[in-house]
């Protein structure tokens, strides 16, 4: 792979991260003059966690999207379309009702469990190298089931407050998370991404089919289990803190493969960079929108991502018709 696009991506990511801390600048600048500790606290406790979460969650979605697409040999596989994020959301909501939203470890475990359940169900329903239609239908069924169960959980909310908390969290938001909460999402995400990067070579060899990958000496069953577990672990932890955010995991790998000449495994690293960049950019859009109130970021990524998805489906009709 060429280094220049990689370098540019890295620079863009740093710029977006800096912008995420700095925008909007005037109130910070004014505060820095008047009350320096308060301004720094604002940067440290409000804006840094938000930027960190956008970066980690976006990178996690990008990396796991690339890995899942490579595993299923299908560019329409992604954590959201396969029901992983809805499974994680269900796991987290159920856990939250039992233990409250203020227990991040339990919440994260619940979300990871939910994500794992959804992915295993998908593998069982669609099979490892599913046709696009089977994969999407199975993903749709799992998303619908998890969504219905989440709605049921909301309807059975123990109190209006619990309902409101869960509802707001479900829409996907990076706002008002503490630095500890950010670390709760970012640390598992970082570990999962680093471990996913190791799997690039076997994933690339899957381009030639499962049999050839096995003849190379790659253990495809283990690869499948590793990717499912790492995705569930990283995405689950992020969903537990920020709610479900869609489409980044679908879009980022598709752009990333343009940089790697189509190699699915090598695309994991650029997909992580692009995913982080996309979510940081979406968060900047949320902040700059002149609406007087904060939009949930999950809504923004869905609004931007859904048309792209439609384009992709139209573009891939030949493959769907196969």
């Amino acid at each position, binding site marked *: 792979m060429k280094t220049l696009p990689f370098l540019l991506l890295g620079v863009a990511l740093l710029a977006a991260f800096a912008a995420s801390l700095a925008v909007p600048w005037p109130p910070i600048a004014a505060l820095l003059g008047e009350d320096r500790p308060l301004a720094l606290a604002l940067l440290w406790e409000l804006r840094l966690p938000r930027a960190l979460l956008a970066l980690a969650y976006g990178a996690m979605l990008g990396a796991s999207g690339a890995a899942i697409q490579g595993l299923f040999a299908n560019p329409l596989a992604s954590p959201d379309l396969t029901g992983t994020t809805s499974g994680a959301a269900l796991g987290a909501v159920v856990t939250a009702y039992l233990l409250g939203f203020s227990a991040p470890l339990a919440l994260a475990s619940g979300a990871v469990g939910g994500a794992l359940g959804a992915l295993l169900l998908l593998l069982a329903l669609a099979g490892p190298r599913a046709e696009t239609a089977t994969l999407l239908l199975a993903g749709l069924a799992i998303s619908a089931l998890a969504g219905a169960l989440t709605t049921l959980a909301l309807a059975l909310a123990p109190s209006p407050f619990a309902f409101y908390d869960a509802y707001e969290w479900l829409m996907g938001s990076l706002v008002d998370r503490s630095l500890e909460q950010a670390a709760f999402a970012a640390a598992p995400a970082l570990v999962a991404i680093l471990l996913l990067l190791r799997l690039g070579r076997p994933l690339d*060899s899957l381009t*030639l089919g499962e049999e050839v990958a096995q003849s190379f000496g790659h253990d495809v069953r283990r690869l499948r289990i590793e990717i499912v577990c790492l995705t569930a672990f990283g995405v689950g932890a992020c969903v537990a803190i920020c709610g479900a955010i869609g489409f980044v995991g679908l879009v980022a790998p598709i752009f990333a493969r343009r940089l790697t000449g189509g190699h699915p495994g090598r695309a994991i690293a650029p997909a992580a960079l692009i995913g982080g960049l996309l979510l940081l950019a979406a968060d900047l859009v949320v902040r700059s929108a002149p609406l007087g109130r904060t939009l949930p970021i999950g809504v923004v990524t869905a609004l931007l991502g859904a048309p792209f998805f439609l384009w992709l489906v139209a573009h891939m009709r030949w493959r769907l018709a196969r």
Partner: protein
Amino acid sequence: MIPLLEAKGAALAGRLAPTDLAVGRPELVCLVGPNGSGKTSLLHALARIGQASGMVRIGGRRPEDLAPAARRSLLSYLPASRDVAWPLSARDLVRLGASEAEADEAMAALDLLPWADRRIDRLSTGERSRVLIARALAPKPLLLLLDEPVANLDPLWQLRLMAILRLAVAGGQGAVVAMHDLDLAARFADRLVLMAAGAIVGDGEPLAMLDSARLGEVFGIKRAGGAWMPRD
């Protein structure tokens, strides 16, 4: 001397009965047999694909003991399917299991250099076959396991490919090749291995095998006027 290939009781549950096969020196062994007779399964068992049991040694070493980087100098496997999951360029595809120099050499041998940078999904089926064959040949492994390599190739390229395989054998490699064209197999192979119902039922010198009653029985065909005809 260490035999090139030594398989003892190599089997795949439900598909291939425990099978012994030995290739002592570099030679071209063609696997023939009707559809579903176990040719692909035997190749899988030799390449240790799926839940293959039994013992396989190539050049005295067990493939499952070797990491991917070392295994590629031992064996390479070409599946019958010509599907490729992602639209890589022809060169990148050949490079998946070989160095740049090896890839270029294999692509030159199969006259693929003009298409090297073209995307695999924009090539014809025959050209794609040649790219995948180049991928299997490129690392120059001790043993080539090829499943119907001549399928989809035009008559000239079928002959050229067989000549390339002879050249590989002359260079010290062994090849076990499943194919359906009996005459082509008999013309180029050192040995013909006949399979039926998941087991080896005949093994010998090609022309003798071709004339054997066994072969006609297994395939349900006979030679009449220089052509193969149904037996009844």
